[in-house]
């Protein structure tokens, strides 16, 4: 999945230009509503800065495109192209997926402590730590450390498990 430097930069600029258009013509009109009868005497409207930044982004990209591909000048000190070998791509995809599962599902449904225990266990296992005893002890020790530090020390109560709560409620009822 390697691209040459020119094509990579061209693709990056064009992709970012599309995103900028999307931001200016869809995101801002649909998410920033100026108060009614907002006049020049009231100062600048809330949509002013988003439009200004959107336009500045647009002009920066167009300027760079013209400069680089029409006038063919290059003021950059050095440019790197992304390295995405198949192995790296697969590995980083797994890691990102586990991180997303942890933040969006594990903590919400299993609670911070149980979710984190499972997260450390799985991620360390994928990263190469195959000794189950070490994994279990390390995860338990870390969770205890966080519990003592946050819950006991500072009275900061980290999210609790929704599922376990329902299970316990079911047993008690």
């Amino acid at each position, binding site marked *: 999945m390697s691209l040459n430097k020119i094509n990579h930069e061209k693709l990056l600029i064009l992709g970012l230009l599309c995103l900028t258009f999307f931001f200016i013509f869809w*995101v801002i009109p649909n998410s920033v509503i100026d*108060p009614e009868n907002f006049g020049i005497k009231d100062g600048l409207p809330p949509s002013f800065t988003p439009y200004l930044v*959107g336009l500045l982004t647009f002009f920066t990209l167009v300027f760079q495109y013209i400069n680089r591909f029409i006038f063919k000048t290059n003021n950059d000190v050095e440019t790197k192209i*992304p390295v995405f070998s198949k192995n790296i791509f697969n590995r980083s995809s797994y890691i990102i997926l586990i991180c997303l599962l942890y933040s969006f599902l594990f903590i919400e449904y299993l609670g911070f402590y149980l979710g984190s225990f499972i*997260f450390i266990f799985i991620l360390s296992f994928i990263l190469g730590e195959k000794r189950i005893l070490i994994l279990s002890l390390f995860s338990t020790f870390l969770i205890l450390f966080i519990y003592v530090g946050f819950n006991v020390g500072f009275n900061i109560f*980290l999210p609790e498990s929704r599922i376990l709560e329902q299970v316990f409620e079911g047993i008690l009822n």
Partner: protein
Amino acid sequence: MENIVAGIQLATTPEALIAIFIGLIAGQILGAIPGLTASMAVALLVPYTFYLDPWIGIPMLLGMFKGSLFGSSITAILIKTPGTPAAAATVLDGYPLAQKGKGVKAMKMALYSSVFGDTFSDVMLIFAAGFLASIALNFGPPEYALLTGFSLICISSLTGNSIWKGLLSVFLGMIIGMIGLDPITATPRLTFDYLELEEGIGLIPMLIGTLAVSEEIRQMEQPVKKLASSTLTFSKKKIDNIVTLSEFKSTLPTILKSSGLGTLIGAMPGLGSTIAAFLAYGEAKRSSKFPEKFGKGSLEGVAASESANNAVSGSNMIPLLAFGIPGDIAAALIMGAFLIQGITLGPVVFQDNPIEIYAIFAALIVANLFNLVLGHGLIRMCKHVVTVPKRLLFPAVLVVASAGAYAIRGSLFDIQLVFIFGILGYLMIKCDIPTVPMLIGFILIPILEENLRITILLGSSHDLDIGFIFTRPAFLILLLIMILASFLVLKRRKLHNLEKFTNKKL
């Protein structure tokens, strides 16, 4: 004179000294935990000061504040996770130094420059509180808008390899910073009626995600064999574990300049230590003889950001003591502690409570000396933590960082943001887009926008004539300084590019 002696005596009682000592240790440890900021450390202690004698509680608070600022730089250097946002700029050179085996050297440089910056600003506080506060009070919305706008341009053009990528990164940060309620009309912006977004994106989750999580994802993609070793190895050579006198001497001009800049910024209410650190870093890079070393492990870079962010801690007491205006959240909390003890800060405090004021000055200086001693102990302790293999350390850091992000607002959304920004940062690294300008854009946009819009509103009271800003002496002086600085930045960048080009050709 009697008041000065009485103040020093009050601050150096055994109880007060022990309080400073405990405050510093607690502050250094809290500061090293990502997500627990200096303000948070102080906030945690403020309620307890009510039950303590004033001259135990207040020195403890001051010690905790100073300790947390240094503690935050330890994790910034060793695991690329700033304990507090103020240490974010320290990551830029501290972490590359640690990767070269010079972690202890970087931490020691951070300690010395922190203590230097701190002491510098405390001395300025003692001798020039009134004068500096009067300069800072001349700064109105037009000057703040100009200062922040200029900082944005400077930082985007100095960070990374291409100006356009730096600018894009700044713009992205500005867009993210606009999410939430409009600062003037309180209209929701870019929230799509999503309640969590109305509070805006939290700085801590964004910092942890962009700086730490992105770097960890990048490192975790390495082959399994490489992950069996520890994240960092420490060089055994003595020279790599100490800061030599000649190294300190060579960074002294940078430390002095950054301390001055930090002191000035601290004296301006609302700007804070994060901005001071990045501005000082940018300025140090601009004026350095070796700008190409910045971002790759320059001691000057560490010294600049650390001395500037610590210099803020003393000088943000200037508007607090002189006018009763807290410069940042931590100063506001310290003000709260004084109020609890029945001391109202402001112009009359020098007349009503002179002994207490001199006692504060003495406590600040004593805290700096203790910080220097205790800092060495913390460095030794933290050195051992990072010897854990990467495959165990990375997941552990991610979990601790998530807990820290949650602790700020008690929001699950903040944990999700940590990982979303981690992935965004990772993609930016892959596309060679610098992430730091994005953070600066994010931090500065509320200040820039608010002051710009207030300036326009002020213009509408001058018959819609924005030209009134040119009648303000402070604005004109600042503009002149900035034009001069821009000229120097462009000249330096041109020379730097030319040098690189020549080297390549050769």
